[in-house]
């Protein structure tokens, strides 16, 4: 689960991505499309209980069987994709951009700004992430507008650490010194001189962080603290249908597989990005 593989990409691989990367890309695109358009294409509402049995087996009518209330499982998974992918994507984008901006500020400012920011964020790192999430949910209740900032807050320190270590190196380059002697402001140095040179490794990092956020949300939902019924993301789908675990019904296996396929796909893609991180690094 690291991006080192992409650093070691040989020059020959630069043009075409190897097949595991392409597979990852295909699966990720599929899930994104499903999250965006799936519910609309479905044609019927997933909350419709119909007349089917509870935990029905896979059939022509219900491709993935039914859940504990007799709802169509395929529809539930497709609707869950919107929550899982959407929340995780928003939270990751927030975490990465806040982390990167703070890191740029830390690198381009006076040493004391850097010290305050870095130590402050170190303090946040020392709080266990699940605990922090539990406390936030306990304090403010569980809702979508609450979940996204919580997940973002938890992953800001990681993004900050990586971006800062990259930005500090760029900040020591002569071209940044030249910009400084020219009299450029801090914002220009942050956004025009440093940011373009750290953006590629940060994009690779964004992908990895996305995976962590997906897993955090799934586990929160599994504990009943994430997305609340009747809405459901994949984590809560697993929890709702945990009763069918013994019988091996698709109702519990399908959302679990969905989580696994998404996270593995993103990892495969990131690890095989064609020389992107490598080029950004020097």
């Amino acid at each position: 689960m690291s991006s080192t593989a992409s650093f070691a990409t040989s020059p020959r691989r630069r043009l075409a991505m190897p097949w595991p990367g392409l597979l990852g890309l295909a699966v990720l695109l599929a899930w994104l499309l499903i999250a965006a358009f799936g519910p609309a294409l479905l044609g019927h509402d997933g909350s419709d209980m119909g007349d089917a049995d509870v935990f029905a087996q896979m059939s022509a009518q219900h491709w993935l069987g039914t859940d504990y209330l007799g709802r169509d499982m395929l529809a539930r998974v497709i609707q869950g994709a919107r929550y899982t992918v959407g929340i995780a994507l928003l939270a990751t984008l927030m975490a990465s951009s806040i982390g990167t901006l703070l890191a740029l500020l830390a690198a381009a400012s006076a040493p004391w700004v850097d010290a305050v920011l870095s130590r402050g964020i170190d303090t946040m790192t020392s709080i266990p992430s699940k605990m922090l999430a539990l406390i936030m949910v306990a304090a403010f209740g569980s809702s979508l507008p609450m979940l996204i900032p919580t997940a973002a807050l938890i992953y800001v320190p990681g993004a900050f650490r990586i971006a800062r270590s990259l930005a500090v190196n760029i900040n020591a380059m002569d071209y940044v010194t030249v910009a400084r002697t020219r009299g450029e402001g801090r914002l220009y140095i942050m956004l025009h001189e440093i940011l373009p040179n750290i953006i590629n490794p940060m994009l690779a990092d964004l992908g990895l962080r996305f995976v962590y956020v997906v897993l955090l949300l799934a586990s929160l939902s599994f504990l009943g603290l994430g997305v609340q019924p009747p809405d459901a993301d994949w984590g809560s789908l697993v929890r709702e249908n945990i009763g069918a675990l013994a019988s091996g019904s698709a109702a519990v296996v399908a959302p679990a597989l969905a989580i696994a396929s998404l996270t593995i796909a993103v990892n495969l893609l990131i690890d095989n990005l064609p020389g992107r991180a490598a080029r950004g690094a020097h």
Partner: protein
Amino acid sequence: MGAQIQVRDLRIVAGARDAEQTIVHDLSFAIAPGEVLALIGESGSGKTTTALALMGYARSGCRIAGGSVRIGETEVLALDEAGQRALRGRRVAYIAQSAAASFNPSRTIMDQVVEPALIHRTASRADAEAKAVALFRELALPNPDTIGARYPHQVSGGQLQRLMAAMALITDPELVILDEPTTALDVTTQIEVLRAFRRVVRERRTTAVYVSHDLAVVAQMADHILVLRDGETRELGATAQILTAPSNDYTQRLLAAARPKVREAGTPGAAATETPLLEVRQLSAGYGPRDRDGQPKALILEDINLKLYRGQAIGVIGESGSGKTTLARAIAGLIAPCRGEMLFDGQPMPPLLAQRSKEELRRVQIVFQMADTALNPSQTIERILARPLQFYRGLSGEPLQRRIRELLDLVKLPSTVAGRLPGGLSGGQKQRVNLARALAAEPELILCDEVTSALDTVVGAAVLDLIAELRRELGLSYLFISHDLHTVRSVCDEIVVMQHGRKLAQVARADYERGPHHPYYELLARSVPELRQGWLDEQAAA
């Protein structure tokens, strides 16, 4: 005693199998036993690649595609992996450019020097150590009996380079490859190392290959010189013939670039009544936290006085650690001086960047040594040049484009480079863009920090020509920082000599050749290798 070396039709290719590029083209040469052959050429000429191929080694991404390399009776390229491993370090030894990077910092020097002998089982540990001490003595290292017990960071760079030679010679190799062994050293250190190398090579009659870009150094070391360019032989001949009667035009250009040349800029115009453009008074500066008296922990510059008149070029020369770069940074406002003041055009100039006005900033521009790190790799040349024009003069649209073209023209670059990224330019071109960016601000003073040090001789000479020409045409003033006395002499009207953060002497152009000077300046002047054979022997005799 060295071996006879015979290289025939050596061809080395690089790149993926379907898109190979030949980087060394069918090279053939021979070295008689006990002779030294120099491989000379600019970066990218294939000289190091060729030298490494003598050990049967190709860097990753390269492949030896054909030809033959014979050391004595052995055909190196026909050996298998194990055979080549047995050869390397035993019969062929390699001395790299940076000794500091070649030593393991966590083991003692002796451990590492005797390692080749132990790996190849040519001697017992005790014998190897005795031999190492003898070699230390031969290489004129201080305290030869005890220096082996030290760690690499406890000896100087020049000593480390000689210790590496001891490591290479401990197995009595038949061929020694020296790859730019003195390039990273200061001139006064270089001369000691050269002397030591020359003595061991002579006394042991080792066959050697000396890779370098510096003709003056090579003239002292080599019996024959092979001039390489783009992986092809340009000229191969005895050292005396190459130096005095080169037949190839590239060799002639190389020699012309290496010869010291005075680049007069016409009007020094240093009337004593005129206000100096830049006056530095009793400047002290340093790094680290300050104590109660405002004295930084590490004081780098002490009590510097300097006057630079309009249109003048002053060279600041000194060895690494002399504080010359810190002086430039203090003038540019990058570090706060702890004492002293600076006057620009008679007006006091605030010490720090943040306190200076845009106009004050515009009038002083700095040009850095490494053009690679001085240009933002993610911006096109056009954008790099446009920024100071927009920033200082608010240009846009057609006037901006015209000015960019003018600037490129001024530094003699085709306007087609405007759309390219710095990565697509050569080292010399990048340094020209670097200069053009400084010129864009229309400064009155340019601080040049080692601007030609990272460039090849021919390219560096062209950049120096450009600098002198710009001074003539635009009436610019320069503070020119360099470790190379030749460079400074060729473009500057006055030389400031620095050592340990103090200004030792100031020498005007008229007095360059006339003494007496400060002993340290004399030492520096004596240490610069001259482009003729026998110079090193004269120095040794003196």
